[in-house]
Structures are given as structure tokens and as C-alpha cells.
């Protein structure tokens, strides 16, 4: 398997790999977004729970 030729993509390497890079990066961002949002939501709800507990004790 001639890796050198493979990456060259018949001279269009920058365009082909550029496209695949964009594809991967955008989809990774789309993939990660809900996970980041869930972590932020959990943190906020934990704070609200702590506050609610403190308020219900006082």
C-alpha cells in the first residue's frame, strides 16, 4: 500500500483531505455539543438542589 501516493490523492490531497477534515471537525462539534450541555445542566441542577436543601432546612 503506497501511503505516499495515497495521501497525495493524485495531486488533490489538500482538497480531499481538507474536505474530510472539515467533515470530521464539524461532526465532532455536533457530537460533543449535547454532552457539554448535559454536564453544564447537571452542574446547575446540583447547585439548585443544594440551595433547595439549605432553604428547606432553614
Amino acid at each position: 500500500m503506497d501511503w505516499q501516493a495515497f495521501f497525495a490523492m493524485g495531486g488533490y490531497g489538500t482538497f480531499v483531505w481538507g474536505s474530510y477534515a472539515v467533515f470530521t471537525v464539524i461532526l465532532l462539534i455536533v457530537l460533543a455539543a449535547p454532552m457539554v450541555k448535559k454536564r453544564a445542566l447537571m452542574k446547575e441542577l446540583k447547585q439548585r438542589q443544594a440551595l433547595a436543601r439549605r432553604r428547606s432546612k432553614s
Partner: protein
Amino acid sequence: MMKPLGQPASIATPSGPRKTLLQVHSLFFQRNQLTILENVQLTLDAGEVVLIRGENGSGKSTLIRLLTGLVPAQEPFEVSLDGERFDPGDPRCQVQFQYLGHNLGLKDNLTCAENLKFYADFLGRRADVTVQGALNACGLDGYQYSEAGRLSAGQRKRLALARLLLCPARIWFLDEPYSNLDAEGITLVDRLLQRHISEDGRALMTSHGTFVPQVSNHRELEIDGWTP
């Protein structure tokens, strides 16, 4: 600081055996996860004024806007009028009620007469009341040609009340009718209410103040609003 969750507001009402004409069952409303209204039971008989009292933000205005269909119901609630289903979205029912909210529905650049003339054409006019007659009845006799925008808050409220007088409706939904009115204005509201219920009409009104409608037949309900 995150507002803590309060108890949902509910209206307790004596379920009298009398002829119930406008009945509301299990009304529920939630805004941004805060339950504002829950299991609201409400009856409104012909010839009666029901006053709903409660602090600001306790859901009074929301209740009225729900009943008039301005705010869509999140859970379907039952409203029946004379036994039939009262749907605020249905033209047959819309003909029967009028709504007066915080925003009075007046155009500042139109004169008092033009504002009322529009509603006479748009909502229909009672045969026995003219535009000028309504203005005079509400103490705005000299103002028919002055622009609504130049009136004082009290006078603008009187102009809105003139619309209630002018256009036919069996049910009045009034949100804070007493606000911005002086003592004389409040007696005007009471006079209009008295005349309305004497013609077998009915009115549901809200107020956070202490005034009680001086009319022959009224009932008070308390929204035990959630404590912020």
C-alpha cells in the same frame, strides 16, 4: 439568585348548587417550569360579578388571558357556559365576551371618537348606545376630537370603559379595571358593572387593590398566590 419553587396558586371556590353558567374545571398553567395555576375551579353566574384578588404575578392576568383564549392552554381545561362547551377560539363564543386588559386597546394617534367608531364597526354596537353617548356616560363628553395619546391615564381608562359600554357582550373579562382611576372613576366602573349585571350580564374582574365593587351581587375569590 435562582428563585426557589413556590406552592402553585389555586382558587378555592364554594361549589354552590346554584344555576352555574360559566364553569371552569382543572385549569393548569406553567411558565418556565413554575406552576402558576393549578386545579382552578371557578363559576360565574348570570347577573354576578366575581372579583379575583391576589398579588401581582400570582396568575390573575394569566387566568383571564387563558379564559379569553389569548394564551393557549397547556393542558386542555373545561369551560362551560349554560351547559354548552365555551371555547374562546370559537366565533360563537367570542361574540359573547369582551376583554379589557392592562393594554387598553386604544390607538394614541386616533381621536376618542375615532377609537370608539372603529370598535363600533369592528365589534358591533349596541342599538341603544351611540359613540357620543358612551363618551358622555364615561365623563369624556368634551374629548371626542382630542387624540387618545394626549389624555391622562385615567381618561384613557375611561375611554376603554366606554368601549365596554358601546359594544354588546354577555361576559366581561376585566383585568385590573380600577387601576389608574380616581375615586370618581371607580364609581364609574361600579355603575357600569351594576348596569351590566342588571341586564343579566356577568363579569370576572381582577384586582390587587383593596377596592370592592359596590354592586348588588358580587363574590370574591382569593388566589393564594405562591410565596416568592
